[in-house]
């Protein structure tokens, strides 16, 4: 065995690589923030400095005053909130069933949920257009949220299943002994214990909807979500507006991912075993 590096050199190299990879994630976000706060002068400045002279919130405020941006952001928030609501309302009961009962078809159901992740779901927005026009759902935040719920539901089911499985069955049984009905036991014992994880799952559903571009763009015309709005005005908007748009899209997501960081593994770490 030949060791080329001394332990110290190895540790230094290791630390440097980790720092570099952190910079690889963070620096681009910092740079688009500069583009968003710097406005027009900063975008066309050459060569660029890392701290443009005219950095201010005004530029971002001007972007938010553009006709359509506020409404689009509002549509996004409505669609994302509905997605949050639907995915939990539909997902949590299914998660409870998977965690507490062994029943015929449980495996098939679990497989179906996992398979939806191996499917280009957003593409299904294309045929839904015709159906949504007939049902009066086309160009509404509600319609968009239905497609986004299909994207978020598999996560909601798997996360709530793992949450409920982690709460001892004995607690519920004790509640039954003291005269609670099954539903009362769930409401008074299980839900309060599972609440933080359920909030995380809801936040994650919000982020999925907030970030989704394709289905939202296909299903809206007047009431565009923020991503759909940015996509359609992209080619004709000045550069600093594009960067402001990109920055506004990113900020809530970063905050939310920070809030749910403890649950990331329950959300994504479920493998097809």
């Amino acid at each position, binding site marked *: 065995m030949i060791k080329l590096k001394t332990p110290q050199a190895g540790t230094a190299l*290791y630390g440097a690589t980790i720092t570099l*990879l*952190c910079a690889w*994630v*963070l620096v*681009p976000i910092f*740079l*688009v923030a500069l583009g968003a706060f710097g406005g027009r002068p900063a975008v066309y400045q*050459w*060569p*660029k400095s890392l701290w443009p002279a005219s950095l201010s919130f005004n530029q971002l405020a001007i972007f938010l005053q553009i006709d359509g941006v506020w409404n689009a952001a509002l549509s996004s928030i409505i669609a994302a909130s509905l997605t949050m609501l639907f995915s939990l309302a*539909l997902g949590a*009961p*299914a998660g*409870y*069933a*998977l965690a507490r009962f062994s029943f015929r078809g*449980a495996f098939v*159901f679990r497989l*179906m949920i996992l398979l*939806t*992740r*191996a*499917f280009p779901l957003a*593409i*299904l927005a*294309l*045929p*839904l*257009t*015709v*159906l949504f026009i007939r049902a009066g759902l086309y160009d509404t935040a509600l319609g968009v949220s239905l497609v986004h719920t*299909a994207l978020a*539901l598999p996560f909601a089911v798997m996360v709530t299943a793992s949450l409920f499985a982690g709460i001892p069955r004995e607690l519920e049984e004790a509640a039954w002994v003291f005269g609670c009905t*099954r539903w009362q036991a769930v409401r008074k014992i299980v839900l309060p214990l599972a609440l933080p994880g359920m909030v995380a799952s809801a936040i994650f559903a919000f*982020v999925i909807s*907030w*970030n989704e*571009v*394709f289905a939202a763009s*296909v299903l809206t015309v007047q009431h565009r979500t923020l*991503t759909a709005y*940015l*996509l359609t005005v*992209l*080619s004709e908007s000045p550069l600093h507006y*594009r*960067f402001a*748009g*990109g920055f506004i*899209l990113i900020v809530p*997501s*970063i905050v939310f*991912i920070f809030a749910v960081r403890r649950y*990331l*593994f329950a959300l*994504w*770490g479920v*493998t*097809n075993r």
Partner: protein
Amino acid sequence: MSQTRWLPYLLIAPATLFLGAIFVVPLVQTILLSFNGGAGGVFANYQRMMGDLNFGVSLRNTFLLVVTVVPLQMALAIGMGLMLQKLTHGRELVLWIWTIPLGVSDLAAGLVWFAILQNTGYFNTLLFHLGLISGPTAWLNSETPYTLFIAVVVAEIWRSTAVVLVVIVAGLQLIPKEFGEAAEIFGASPLKKFVRVTLPMLKPSLQSALILRTVLAFEVFASAYAIGGRNIPVLVGEAYVWQRENQNYSVAAAYAVLIMIISLSATWVYLRLLRENPEAQA
């Protein structure tokens, strides 16, 4: 007693019915729509799709992006996962920073890298200070297809490696420490330990990550559009154009069917290639 018999089915019914309605119905509809060619016959929409100038280019771009992005980010994520394992201090912080892109949409990622790589952007400023270029230089138009392609690859790797990382970190945590320690006692080098112990144990996670990422990578659209506009056409982008600009839902449906077939084939290939095969690991 009979109450608990049907209770689980009652509980999964809403989710099942919803997925059925929003998943199976449009799926059948897409397939029917794509084969409804009117006077042109059953395959008229597909013929029209394949006869389009952008079809070949977008098919090629999409496949090239997938075969470039997915292996690179798998390697990167495995490397990051192994580094995290060795980390004793600040593991939480590093993991949080590395997973930030989980919350970044493809559109935002495209805009971020457009800000860096545009003519008067930060990348060109860096090159300028290094003395490599003399003024603003264009990398992202139709005359520079190679750098435009690389830009989309960079943006996609930046955005979507975090998902792979989380799946792999979860998989690494499941490998018992004793396995690696045993390999070390028997004198295995770090490389040999990685190839003979870590990789085989990680196979289910790698399979999940590959399926997840490949399917999503075939849906690449907004990042390419934000960086290169129509200069780098991709399959989903073409489906969008046929639907919205040409108002031709049938050809858009043909694109949708094509994308679904490609995604499902990719999943099937991974399931076959990475099948658990205990006898092969003698």
